[in-house]
């Protein structure tokens, strides 16, 4: 009898997720001076994760509340979470909300929201079966964008020009050029603010140019909003692009994550906001979303959504949350300013203005792969091969070491 075929008999090792590998290598490094600039989460000046004070408060409220049960949530999630989360993205006075043409699906973090949006679009956008519809993601982008859309069945996931390595800024001409030449109805994944990994966002004027082309060429707008509030410290400012597109009459998806701005990394709190022409379209879209949710995770987890909903819907808690968010954003801004000042003071070759011009958690330092390798091997400073650093990994205690190391690297390694 021939030998049985085994499940996973010839499974190749998948390429490790770069950021996970980096974290592991950092953990195993015995150097007491080591610094982790690859971490994708906020850290305090003591290098510790931070439970937001408002989160601690609300968790206690939840635990003490006997009326709350542990029943299944509805398939689309907690209603008060969905509506308040959408309001955060679109604004309390959004015309779309007032016109009753906004819907939402509670999802497992930002990834889950992207996944639901992708699954819907593949099935229903622009007629059935969009396996061949091009999906454009920025070059570079958060690497999981590629996997989420590819796994949802899109065969053609392509980059659009975004980062100009030479000028260390936005390649607007390239971006607009790709928008002009993309096949009509292509799907574009846009970072709402605090672009990951470059930290470089279009200006308001540049966004208007992007919107103009997208409208004319009937391209689908899919915002990824993982850092609202975290980028500038102000929720409304960080939502400018999303709200602008709404006022321009776009129908769109916006995948929201509350992992970073609530520090709820392990509760997986996300929301897919849907803006359509009218309520009937929203209703039909949501009915299909229900079907998709049902065969992925059935219904979403309750804890995090409840926490966010209570916070957003209670005036004092909402104010306290905004304050906590600003605390995080301000620390990041302080580290940016400090790093830039120290590099300038050291006379490090090159310009370093991009460190303070970029926004959000990440900065594209401009270090090349060889320099990155030197930083890791010789200085035990861990950053992504792309030169991306997480500003949250910097503290008042390690910033001198990091600045000197960058200086040494740039001088010695080309």
């Amino acid at each position, binding site marked *: 009898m021939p030998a049985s*075929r*085994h*499940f*996973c*008999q*010839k499974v*190749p*090792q998948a390429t490790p*997720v770069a950021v*996970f590998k980096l974290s592991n290598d950092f953990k195993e490094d015995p150097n007491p001076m080591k610094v982790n600039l690859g971490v994708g989460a906020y850290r305090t000046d003591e290098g510790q*994760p931070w*439970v937001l004070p408002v989160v601690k408060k609300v968790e206690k409220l939840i*635990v003490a509340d006997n009326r709350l049960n*542990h*029943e*299944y949530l509805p398939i689309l999630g907690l209603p008060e979470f969905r509506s308040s989360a959408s309001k955060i993205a679109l604004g309390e006075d959004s015309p779309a909300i007032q*016109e009753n043409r906004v819907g939402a699906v509670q999802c497992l*973090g*930002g*990834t*889950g929201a992207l*996944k639901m949006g992708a699954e819907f679009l593949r099935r*229903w*956008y622009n007629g*059935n079966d969009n396996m061949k519809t091009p999906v454009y993601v920025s070059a570079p982008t958060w690497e999981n964008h590629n*996997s*989420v859309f*590819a*796994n*949802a069945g899109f065969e053609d996931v392509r980059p659009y020009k975004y980062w100009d390595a030479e000028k260390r800024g936005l390649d607007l001409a390239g971006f607009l050029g790709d928008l002009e030449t993309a096949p009509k109805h292509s799907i574009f994944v846009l970072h709402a603010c605090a672009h990951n990994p470059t930290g470089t966002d279009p200006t308001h*004027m540049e966004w*208007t140019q992007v919107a103009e082309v997208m409208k004319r060429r009937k391209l*689908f707008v899919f915002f990824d909003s993982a850092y609202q509030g975290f980028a500038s410290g102000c929720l*409304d400012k960080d939502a400018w692009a999303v*709200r*602008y597109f709404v*006022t*321009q*009459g776009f129908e769109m998806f916006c995948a929201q994550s509350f992992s970073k701005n609530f520090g709820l*990394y*392990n*509760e*997986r709190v996300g929301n897919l906001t849907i803006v359509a*022409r*009218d309520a009937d*379209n929203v209703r*039909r879209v949501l009915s*299909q979303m*229900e*079907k998709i949710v*049902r*065969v*992925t*995770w*059935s219904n*979403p*987890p*309750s*804890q*995090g959504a409840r926490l966010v909903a209570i916070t957003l819907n209670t005036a004092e808690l909402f104010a306290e949350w905004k304050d906590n968010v600003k605390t995080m954003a301000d620390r990041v801004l302080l580290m940016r300013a400090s790093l830039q000042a120290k590099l300038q003071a050291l006379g490090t070759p090159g310009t370093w203005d991009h460190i303070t011009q970029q926004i959000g958690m990440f900065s594209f330092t401009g270090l090349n792969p060889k320099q990155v390798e030197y930083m890791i091997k010789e200085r035990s400073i861990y950053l992504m091969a792309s030169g991306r650093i997480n500003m949250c990994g910097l503290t008042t205690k390690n910033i001198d070491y990091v600045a000197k190391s960058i200086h040494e690297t740039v001088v010695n390694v080309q």
Partner: protein
Amino acid sequence: MRQTCNSDGGVGSTENVQARGITLLSIFVDTPTAEPNPETKLLADFKTDTHLSKVYLAGREYLNKEGQTSVSPLVGKIMQQICTDPTLCPEYPSSFGLPEFTRRATELVLGRDCHAIVENRVLGVQTVGCTGAVRLGAELLKHWYNVSGVWCGPVYLSSPCDDSLAGIFEAAGIQDVRRYRYWDTEQRGVGVQKMMEDLEMAPEQSVIVLSASAHCPTGSDLSQKHWRLLTQLMVRCRFFPFFLLPAQGLCHGDVQQDAWPVRLCASLGMELLCAQSFSHSFGLYGERVGHLLCVLKQSSTLLAVQSQAEKQVRALWSRPSVRGARVVATVLSNPAHHVEWQEGVKSMVERGILVRERLREKLRLLGCPGSWDHLIQQGGLYCCTGLNVQQVEFLEKRRHIYLHPNGCLNPQFCLAAPPGSLQRRHTPKLAVWLCLSTHRIIRVSCLRSPLPSL
């Protein structure tokens, strides 16, 4: 139309879509309204039913004496502890979830000294409920079951089964979903012979989805003798078992017995997948605590499989939510808590058995035709009455009693609630009486007091 963009982030003059006076078709205009899933529809019909004595018997949860879902005092206490624990950090968990949870969940199914665990050929992944576990398993099968490319089936599901199962496999890209006969209406139990016949006809190396215990939705399981026969067949035909274990402990009141079929296959050296849920056994429905267990043939492939599983998880939900898993891990890793939990599960089962016995007894007293022993032979959350489609419809439309269309119900929802209680689902002093006539459409009486004359 000009847009002015202020530096403080405000947007200048705008116009809303309707005022533009141009009819613009929505890009979603071709999206049809989805058929509601049967359960949603049933609940919606129940909610809009204005009849005062309406009863919903198709719920998916275990209920306490008060007719509500609840967590045990132990679980409640642990949740409080977790909330105030200063050492717990808000970090991203790994894509596999909490290591302590996956370890305990694995041991719970297989037993700590299972060869597969000792030989390091077991992978455990925390998932978003049982649905998430099935979905992840389906994705792994699609990509890796067939050495030469994507695998599209066939996968065999029991008839009946949970109505989302087929959709999960299809959503993962496995289109060839077939059924094997399971529930036998005449026997009011598992039709083992027909089941084996159907599986004999299945192509070699088919994936067979099997309920380890507490079959959903019938509550009817195979005996150990039949499991042995089935596994012989599976080995001979080189089938791949994909177990569902949604309520370990809640079928027989014994976690080992409920996982017995999985342990049997593992002891025979078979590879398998097992999708677990901790919703029912911990009352943590909203927390979505699930687990996918993979038992491989060779430990040499473990790391590679792990890396591929991580890749799939990344594209589905990235990482699971931690709260519920932490509670379960805390209970299962503490011997005293573990014992307390098992006792709690046992008493839930005992209460469930009492309800079933009461139901059977009432039917006997009414002189209902037919045998009703199957009600107490079934176990777990569900119970298959054996009522046909017309009879179920009669119950719904004429008596305002809502069962699954396939005649299955959750007997706990028949519990008499304390007087004065306000739950919508549990009318005080209500018991459901099923009175069957083999020659007529069923009649159902809602008992208040006294017994109605028939």
